[in-house]
């Protein structure tokens, strides 16, 4: 219901914008249809900001004249119930019933992989927004799939670049026991051992996803007496881990390096309990002061009355990229669109990004910094933006990672 009201409002905004701007998209022109799939019902904490992001992008694009010389973008959005099987049914509906020109979206890695395989099987373009798994573009990569968000490998590599200079050698890891956690720990150990042959890993904890037994896990980590901890837990597990770890003094005198914890989605719930000093990847949304980013934040706040989150940026950049690709391609033929997106440079609120031809990964980066508590809320300090180019392997290296003939 709420979303209906909001959509109507946005539509209203678009109409008003259309009336004032002489070059708005021609509503009578055949729209370019994009089939969009995400876990709105089950993972609203992440996908709501994402939806707001892409809705803002679509509204701005259409108000500014649409794509392909006046055709509006039309997004048909479906919920995937956080299940690959349901996502595949939705993809089938979008493609076969609504004849969409391309597919976009997804948050969970398994849903993203399922849709990417569907795209290859049905020879349709898929622009994946949020899934993190490296398999998406490397081991399971295919000709039809592109991915925007910096991957598990990229974000881990950004952390290693700084963690390798820390004066510690005894590391412990804690990660949810499934593909994401296992990949992150594997990459971290490999890259750390390469950069610092003297480090040793003294303990590993593998809590089941969203079933972290925080007290016992914290006690087991503490018993191994590490000098530093690499944390991959997130969301509900992160909240429990931080609270128990703080109460039991686990983080005192120890370095903690943590994936994604600086993203507003994960940081906001922690509030005043944000663990100061953690080295994290994230998005210091309120502190980035470039003209492009300011414009994005102002438009977002005008539309929704709140600050964007990481998902908002991802949703916005996904659809801005799609529009740029369509204009570069000139039509909606799948092969033409793929050729246009390969190597395309797109202007985004965080600066220009490039969609790599070699592995179809965008060079969107992330911010790395230390957590601090200010005015009862967590935020990132001493942060810097690490562009994707800085951590992605060169084209020659990724070709060996991808299946042949893709």
């Amino acid at each position, binding site marked *: 219901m709420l979303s209906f009201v909001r959509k109507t409002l946005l539509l209203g905004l678009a109409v008003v914008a259309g009336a004032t701007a002489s070059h708005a998209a021609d509503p009578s022109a055949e729209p370019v249809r994009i089939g969009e799939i995400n876990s709105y019902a089950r993972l609203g904490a992440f996908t*709501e900001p994402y939806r707001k992001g892409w809705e803002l992008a679509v509204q701005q694009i259409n108000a500014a004249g649409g794509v392909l010389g006046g055709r509006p973008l039309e997004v048909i959005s479906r919920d995937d119930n956080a*299940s690959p099987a*349901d996502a595949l049914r939705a993809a089938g509906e979008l493609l076969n019933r609504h004849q969409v020109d391309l597919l976009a979206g997804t948050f969970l890695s398994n849903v993203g992989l399922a849709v990417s395989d569907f795209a290859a099987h049905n020879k349709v373009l898929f622009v994946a927004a949020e899934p993190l798994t490296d398999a998406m573009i490397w081991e399971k990569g295919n000709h039809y799939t592109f991915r925007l968000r910096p991957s598990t490998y990229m974000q881990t590599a950004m952390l290693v670049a700084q963690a390798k200079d820390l004066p510690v050698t005894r590391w412990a890891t804690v990660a949810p026991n499934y593909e994401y956690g296992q990949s992150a720990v594997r990459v971290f150990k490999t890259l750390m051992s390469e950069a610092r042959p003297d480090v040793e890993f003294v303990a590993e904890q593998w809590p089941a996803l969203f079933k972290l037994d925080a007290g016992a896990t914290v006690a087991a980590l503490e*018993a191994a007496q590490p000098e530093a901890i690499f944390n991959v837990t997130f969301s509900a597990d992160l909240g429990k881990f931080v609270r*128990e770890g703080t109460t039991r003094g686990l983080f005192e005198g120890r370095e903690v390096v943590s994936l994604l914890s600086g993203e507003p989605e994960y940081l906001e719930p922690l509030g005043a309990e944000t663990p100061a000093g953690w080295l994290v990847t994230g998005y210091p949304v309120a502190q980035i002061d470039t003209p492009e980013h300011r414009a994005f934040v102002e438009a977002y706040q005008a539309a929704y009355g709140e600050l964007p989150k990481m998902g908002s940026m991802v949703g916005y950049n996904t659809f801005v990229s799609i529009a740029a690709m369509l204009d570069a391609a000139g039509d909606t033929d799948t092969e033409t669109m793929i050729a246009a997106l390969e190597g395309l440079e797109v202007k985004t609120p965080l600066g220009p990004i490039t969609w790599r031809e070699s592995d179809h990964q965008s060079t969107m980066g992330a911010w790395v910094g230390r957590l601090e508590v200010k005015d009862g809320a967590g935020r990132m300090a001493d942060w810097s933006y690490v562009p994707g180019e800085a951590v992605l392997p060169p084209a020659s290296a990724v070709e060996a990672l991808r299946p042949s003939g893709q």
Partner: protein
Amino acid sequence: MDLGFLVIQFLNGLASASSLFLVAAGLSLIFGVGRIVNFAHGSLFMLGAYLTVALVPAVGFWAAVLLAPPLVALIGGLIERLILRPIAGAPELFQLLATFGVSLMVADVVILVWGAADIVGPRAPGLDGAVSVLGKAVPLYDLMLIAVGPAVLGGLWLLLTRTRAGLLVRAAAEDRDMVDALGRDPKRLFSGVFMLGALLAGLGGALAVPRETLHSGLDLQVIVEAFAVVVVGGMGSVGGAYGAAVLIGLVHAFGIVWFPEATLVLTFLVMALVLMLRPHGLFGARAGLPAATGGAAVAPPLTGVGRLGGGLWLLAALGLLAAPLLLGAYGLDVLAEMLILAAFAASLQWLTGVAGIVSFGHAAFFGLGGYAAALMVHHLGWGMIPALLAGSAAAALAGALLGRVGGRLSGVYLAMLSLAFAELLHAVAFQWVGLTGGDNGLIGLWPPAWAADPRAYYGLTLLLAGGAVAGLAGLAFTPHGRALRALRDHPVRAAALGLDVAGLRRRAMVLAGAVAGLAGGLFVFLKGSVFPGVLGVAMSVDALVMMLLGGLHALGGALLGAAAYQGLFVAAATLTDHWRLVLGGLIVLLVVALPGGLGSLGRRLRGRSA
């Protein structure tokens, strides 16, 4: 490993045990008196937690902890009065279905009221610090929790053994009809017990606030663990629930030390082990636990469908045959999925409706069939048809295994063992990335060229899945089907007639496994991929819901149930993000209006008793 660390892990285990116990105690009481497996119990826990967080700003933490549980008890009372009481006469599984509908609705209501973002709850004032025990920090709050468990246990023990109400509760748990005969209204008694159970779940949720991150998935997370505790302790035994909670809490705390990768499976390994050694749990009573399908209630005799019904089924069959001419790729895709789910539901109906064996983990067979087929293709390069057969065979084998291991178990205990079995398989699929691809699954498993056209694959599905549904319906009328129905309604008499009860039950599980496994394999090639979700709790629940919507004893009802559930889901999910609220509400309405399932509609229309 130093002593201090062992002591700390012991305390950690006890603190977790208290949390688990509060939820499990209520679940156990409700089952003991009402024979209801309350799927909404995790939702009541979640409401307790959210209401506490909502009340804290107004009244402070400790007052909120005291106020939220009575509110949850009131909500529980409403659920009992408005939904469970009107269907008190229906087979007990329907009450499970109704509470499942409630849990769907609560999950969405929580998102609507409190938002989807995680909430890290407030700390407990006065107990937010830690004390040093043997040089290690232990949160004060944990020490309080450790005391709360035994205190609540003591209170419940006094209530049950020293008060008149408690006496009646125990009497009702032994023999509900006798309480009725003694002039006590068992409805009011059950109402009270349900509210008490809700109160305990609410208290569990309220006390979990300083240790949990609140999110709308808490309900499912809690309910599965609580089921395990209740079963290990013995259904209906409050003391057993505490013992089991301590056992599982300690297994977790020390499991983390020695098997950090295996935390997901430990609970269910304990549960499977306990059930194999003690078929009624650690402290469960041997007697007084009739089968969950209805105990004394005997299912209506099977009849033919009549001329009108026959005509309608013929029409449906013609429709399914003509579908490739009428529908596009997407329509055939949805229809094929519906047929596969119907075969899955029909296999459960064979087990439950015909043979009287309840399974809460039927996804084990479906998923095993799917994974076996997928692994044959992925690792060994087999073709689709041999892979489908291998999947079916693997699931049949699992049925035989479960039948042998669980042969001594009755009713709900076997249902729970099957749940443990499914959860173990799910953990393997989720965590053994090398074999199964883990959460990322196995992809690229599309049908070969001859079946790649949606019409061809639909035809194959219609032949195999549709054939399985029709075959099972026909088999129910054969002597074998009659023998199964005999032992479902009265195992003792069936045995006296010379029927091999144990052997028949095993054969039923093998057949159900084979059909569910075939359906799982077909599902994999329909989707071109397989993910751990096919082994998950949600998949098992889907099978139960489809079977019950169609009607427990209505042959072919699985087809109706699958069509209704799948249709409602696709329609609701296409229309709104809050499809769980819509779907849950519709399930509750359907259960209350049609306790015999959709398949009983015809019988009702014809004026016969349902």
